[in-house]
Every structure is written in C-alpha cells, then in structure tokens.
C-alpha cells in the first residue's frame, strides 16, 4: 500500500519530519516555524564528552526535544512506542500503514543504504517517515533527501535497532490528537522566551557563555594539545555548525526564516528587523568557519591564526548576547 504523503526536503531531519507530518494532517507548519516553536536554536559545549575524537559541541538541543516542545506548545498529542523485539516493531509498523497512517521513525544513520559513504557514521538520532510498503520494501520519505527512497525489510530493521548512544530501540511515533486551531501566537511567545533564556543561561557551557568558553579553549589548544589535534577539533566545530542539517550558519538562517514568519503571524514588523540581524550573525558564523578552515587546510599556518579565530567567536558571543537580550524584551 502507499499512503498519499507529500515529501518535502528540509535542512534538518527532526524539523523536517515534524513539518511533513503536520502538513499531511492539514496543518501548514513550515520547517522554520517548527524549528522556532520547538526552540531549536541552542549552543552547548561538552568538553568531557568526545564525539569523533573531539569535544562535543552542539548548535541544537538533545535529539527529540524540538519535537517534544513543539507538540506541547501546540497542544498536539503524539503516540510514541519503543520496542525490545524487532518482530513486534515490524508488526506494529505494518498495522499503522494498513490504517493509512504515515509513521515517523528514529533510526541510526550508519546502515542507511541510500546515504553516501562519507556521511555514514554511528549517529542514532536521525528521523524519517515511512509512508507505505510494496512487497517487502518500505517507502521512505527521508527529509534530508531530495526525493523519496526505499528500504527493504532487513535494512529497515537494522537501522531501527542500531546500537550505541541514543539507540533508537525501534522507536516510532505519529500524532493522535490535534486541537481545532493551533495556538500559534501563544506558542511562539513561549518558544522565543525559552530560546532567549537558553542562550543567555548563566552556565559557562551553554549559550553565549558556552561560546566564550570555547573561544578561550581554542586559544589554549595549540600549546596544550598540539596543532594537529587543534585543527581536528576546529574541523569538528565547523562540521557541527555547517554539516549536520543545520541549513547553514549553525541554524541561524533557519531561525531568521522563523522570525520573518513570526513578524507576519504576530503582525509585528519589529521581528522582521530581528530576522535581518540574526541573518547577519549567521553570515559571521560562516566567516568564522572560513577562517577556521584556512587553519586546518595548511598545517603550518601563522601562529596568531588561532587567536584570530577565537576572537571572532568572542565577537559572535557579544553580538548574540546583545541580540537575545533585546529579543527577550521585544517578546515580553
């Protein structure tokens, strides 16, 4: 069977799946709107947690949180199920498809056969939608792919039961209740407040303070751990900022698109100005990436290069602090 499901490519998998599932149910919530209402913009530095042999830096909250907040703020109820037994996971999924309900799945990336080899890592918090089954092949709408794709039954079982951090445990989800009218205004206000609170949090590892901590660390790294490791760490920062479905500039551009929509929904042109500002900040993040890439391109680069890159990050922290302070006032 094949459910009439409209596939739309998105920048980020989690927002993309939410947005596509909501649109399927007749609620026109774009990816930026889903991202903003889920308070997706974030910054966190976890030096004691290593990802790809480098300290973890993330421009987004923990996987699943954007989705959770969005549903709570819009009064949407979601049914989530995890499984121990792969057979039970398959049967339950098949039953939902029989009922014509497209289902969201959390999966591991490493065994996704349609992904290019370079992108296959053991990252387990990817999301996609199954919208049908033909013979023994599942029809897949993966939001970061341009077109729909397929996975065979054994392939799907493998990705649903991938192991490691954030192991999906066959997790599937679908909306079961919608309010008559989505409380958009209320949700937007709450969401922007939460984002401002996160970015201005008085914790040295989170938000603008976290950015400053990273900047300080960058200045120390070349002496402490050597140039080679420093370059690897910088490369990982750039990857987290640009690569993993961020839509560029560490999600700042998606947030800009969100604020532009907010200006229209709330009918407050001031958010159009905020949108322009965060777009400029996103451009600065890209400059930061370019400067960092220059350092890891030629290993024997000038010694004050790291100092310069770190200072750029400090400027970004200052700009974002000022931005979120004013945004907080504007939404209050």
């Amino acid at each position, binding site marked *: 069977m094949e459910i009439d499901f409209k596939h739309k*490519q*998105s*920048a980020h998998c989690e927002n993309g799946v939410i947005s596509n599932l909501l649109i399927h149910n007749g609620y026109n919530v774009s990816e*930026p709107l889903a991202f903003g209402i889920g308070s997706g913009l974030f910054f966190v530095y976890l030096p004691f947690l290593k990802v*790809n*042999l480098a300290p973890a830096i993330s421009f987004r909250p923990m996987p699943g949180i954007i989705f959770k907040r969005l549903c709570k703020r819009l009064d949407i109820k979601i049914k989530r199920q995890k499984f121990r037994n792969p057979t039970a996971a398959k049967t339950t999924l098949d039953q939902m498809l029989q009922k014509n309900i497209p289902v969201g799945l959390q999966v591991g990336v*490493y065994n996704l056969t349609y992904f*290019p*080899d*370079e*992108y*296959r*890592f*053991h990252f387990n918090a990817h999301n996609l939608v199954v919208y049908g089954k033909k013979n023994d092949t599942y029809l897949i709408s993966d939001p*970061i*792919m*341009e077109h729909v794709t397929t996975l065979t039954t054994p392939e799907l079982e493998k990705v649903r039961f991938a*192991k*490691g*951090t954030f*192991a999906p445990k066959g997790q599937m989800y679908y909306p079961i209740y919608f309010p008559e009218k989505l409380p958009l205004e209320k949700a937007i206000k709450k969401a922007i407040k939460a984002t401002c609170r996160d970015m201005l949090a008085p914790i040295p590892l989170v938000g603008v303070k976290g950015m400053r901590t990273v900047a300080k660390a960058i200045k120390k790294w070349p002496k402490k751990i050597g140039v080679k490791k420093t*370059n*690897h760490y910088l*490369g*990982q920062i*750039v*990857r987290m900022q*640009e*690569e993993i*479905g961020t*839509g*560029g*500039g560490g999600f700042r*551009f*998606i947030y*800009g*698109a969100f604020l*532009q929509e907010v200006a229209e929904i709330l009918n407050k042109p001031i958010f159009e100005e905020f*949108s*322009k500002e965060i*777009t400029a900040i*996103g*451009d600065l993040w*890209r400059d930061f*990436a*370019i400067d960092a*890439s220059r350092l*890891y*391109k030629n290993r024997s680069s000038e010694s004050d290069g790291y100092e310069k890159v770190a200072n750029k990050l400090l400027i970004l922290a200052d700009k974002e602090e000022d931005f979120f302070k004013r945004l907080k006032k504007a939404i209050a």
Partner: protein
Amino acid sequence: MDIKDVPQDVGGLANANMKELCYAVDKDGKYATKLSDGWDVKTLALNKSLELIEERIQEFKTQCLNGEISTIPYYMELNRMDLTVLADYMNKWKWTLKRHFKPSVFKKLSEKTLQKYADTFNISIAQLKDITP
C-alpha cells in the same frame, strides 16, 4: 546569506548525487530555500576527519600485523565504531572488549563470541582471525 551566495562547490555531496537544502534571503529580503551542491569549507572538514580515521585504521593494522594487538581494534575503526558503540552491539562491558584487544586473550575466545564479532563487523570468522592481505 544571500540566495545567490548559496555555495555550489562540487564536492562530496555532488559526487554522491545528493543536494542539501539551505535557507537564504532573496533580493526582496524574503527567506527562501535553495539546494546546494556543497561547500568546500565543510567538505574539507569532513575529508580531514575521514583522513584521521584512515590513519588510525592503518596504525591498528600495523600493530595487529606486528602481533601487538588483536584484529578487533582494526575492525572497530574500519566500521567507524568506538568502544561505546561496539560494547552496545556486543552486549558486553567496555573493559571486557579491551581485554579482547590483547592477542593472548583473543586466541582463547569462544566460537560464539567470535561469531558475534564477525556478525557485528559483517565478516566471516576467518576474516576476523586473519587480516594478512
């Protein structure tokens, strides 16, 4: 980012026939989306990261052929795993796995454990025991 500045560097993405969605501002100042072929800055970061993995694979291979370690670290790296991931797949403690890194302990592993490793790495037991080309 201006929509005409969305990078179209033919790199890793284009080779894989994949395009990525970017958000950018059009000439009227409105946000729109555009597909990107990739950006050299991040392709480079990715390639450097893959180079590092390749270096480690070769390192473990040499150590293994010299009889210093068992084949397990080599296959772990080849599958882009770390101890946490491998321990979860094997359903064993990390320190147990670390013991298996020693050739002397590896030699004594049961057929069942070896099969589990082979299944995890998607290879045969013969391949698991011997990586000489």
